[in-house]
């Protein structure tokens, strides 16, 4: 059966070796698809050349949506559509609207941010995550290299990985 996607998977035992390996491998012109680590490794994002996430902007926009929705809903409902006297206050009085507005802002920001995160990091509900090596949840750092995205031959990449401290190099196809 002909596979569509072929990967070379390098296994690393130590995060310091991994970090220098990432830098050296990228310097040699090899494109790394992703690195999976059992715990957060400081400096890995920079080494991989990732841009900073724009998730805070999404959170802000979702939060603003919450603020505007909650405020306008309350003002319209209690101020115009069905005015009610509650606690002897004016129909249109901002202070009692603030707690609801605050909560709704937080709710939408949190939901929106979590949802955005799941979508952009390819963890949609119907999507089964791809495990290049199950040991990345235990004690190994796993580097996946997409062969189709690289012009360098498989043997050469394998050699580069080994010379940079990979304890094993496996092939994986999907």
């Amino acid at each position, binding site marked *: 059966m002909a596979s569509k996607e072929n990967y070379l998977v390098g296994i690393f035992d130590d995060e310091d070796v991994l*970090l220098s390996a990432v830098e050296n491998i990228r310097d040699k012109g090899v494109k790394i698809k992703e690195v999976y680590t059992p715990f957060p490794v*400081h400096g890995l994002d920079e080494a991989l050349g990732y841009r900073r996430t724009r998730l805070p902007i999404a959170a802000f926009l979702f939060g603003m949506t919450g603020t505007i929705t909650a405020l306008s809903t309350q003002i319209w409902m209690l101020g115009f559509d069905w005015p009610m006297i509650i606690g002897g206050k004016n129909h249109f009085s901002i*202070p009692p609207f603030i707690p609801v507005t605050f909560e709704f802002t937080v709710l939408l920001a949190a939901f929106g941010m979590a949802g955005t995160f799941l979508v952009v990091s390819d963890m949609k509900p119907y999507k089964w995550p791809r495990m290049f090596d199950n040991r990345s949840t235990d004690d190994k750092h796993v580097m996946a290299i997409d062969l189709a995205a690289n012009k360098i031959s498989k043997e050469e990449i394998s050699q580069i990985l080994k010379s940079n401290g990979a304890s094993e190099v496996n092939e994986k196809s999907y």
Partner: protein
Amino acid sequence: MNATHEVSDERYIFKPETRSKLLILLAVGIVLLGIGTWMAMSGGEEHRGGHAATTVTKDMVASLDAPATEAAAGEEHHGSPAWLKRIYTTLWMNNVFFTGLGLIGLFFVAIQYAAQAGWSAGVKRIPLAMGHWIPFAGILMLVIWFVVKGDVFHWTHASLYDKASIGPDGTYDEILDKKGVYFFWPLDNGSFPAFYIIRLVVFFGLWYMFFMWIRKEMLAEDVDGLNTHWEKARKYSAIFLVFFGVSSSVAAWDWVMSIDTHWFSTMMGWYVFASWWVTGLAMITLIVSMLKNSGYLKIVNANHLHDLGKFVFAFSVFWTYIWFSQFMLIYYANIPEETVYFIQRRTVSPYSWIFFANLILNFALPFLLLMMRDSKRHIGMLKIVTPIVIIGHWLDYYLMVTPGVMKGEGSIGLIEIGMAMIFLACFLWVTLSSLAKYPLIAKNDPMLQESLGHHI
């Protein structure tokens, strides 16, 4: 990654240029205070909206017996002329404000030890230097209290506790008589407020002792590099934090809430603390930024500034949360004896603009300006936002203290600005001259390596 970094010795030098700048600030403050006093004495800016305000206050309390007698009695014995009352008020208010800055210096250091924080190892000397203000603030607090008590603290008047003078025209105040024990114990109500003064002295005494203990361990560590100093400082810090939790709240009742004698709020302890805390954080951040700009603190980088900026951002929001919690409960319950506090501040002309400026300067601006990650990492932005926060909370304290004393006659003029400049110059003088006395970097701090590798 795990390599240990060498840290070169660094010392802050309190340069003659800095000294002369502070002296100019002090001199300008004194001149402004003088001109302001002269103008107020010759009756220039009096009576703006004063009568309207008095009417509002009386209407507000008309439904209650006791405060009505208070208002009546208040006019009889509040003796000093308006200009002198203004000076007394701003003297007291500035001292409470700057006491907080000194205290927060110590509190910040203690928090770092108790939390075993690593990131802050490079900046801890700045809040430590701010703590040197505590003894000065304590002496000032005691002296100023005896000078201003008759005008600022309504409850000090003996006639309020005189049972011979009961009745609509009498001076006896039943509410205060029942609260009196909190001020006067073990003596008789209306005599010398022994309990109050004991608290003031004990608080400052213990704060200063904890400050000296923690400071001693921090400086001893520079010499012999033993980690036991860090552990001892941590122990003192933990005990201090427990004590500070109680004492800061009681101090807020004593020094701020007791000015509006009949009014009370269970949020006041937190409110005063929140305001002190965010101002102190802003002051620490500002001093760190200034030092960094003049070439000091080489080991402090954008990551440390980011954390300080986050502190200012987060506790601006925290202050707003406390502010709103206090306002919301009083607004919704709508009990006259509580609402009078906000009605005085929101509707009376000299205070109403400060009431809203308070929220804009202390919530909206820091919230929006410090929201982005990049703005917390740039000294330029921090140097814009932290003065806004410091000035904003100075206005916050103005609003806590002044309306209770000055009623409708308060204003912010040359007297208030001059006095603030005098206090600021003295505070900075003490802070910077103390900072110059010991190394700027604690090179033997066990957390220093973590701080050097700090990365967020």
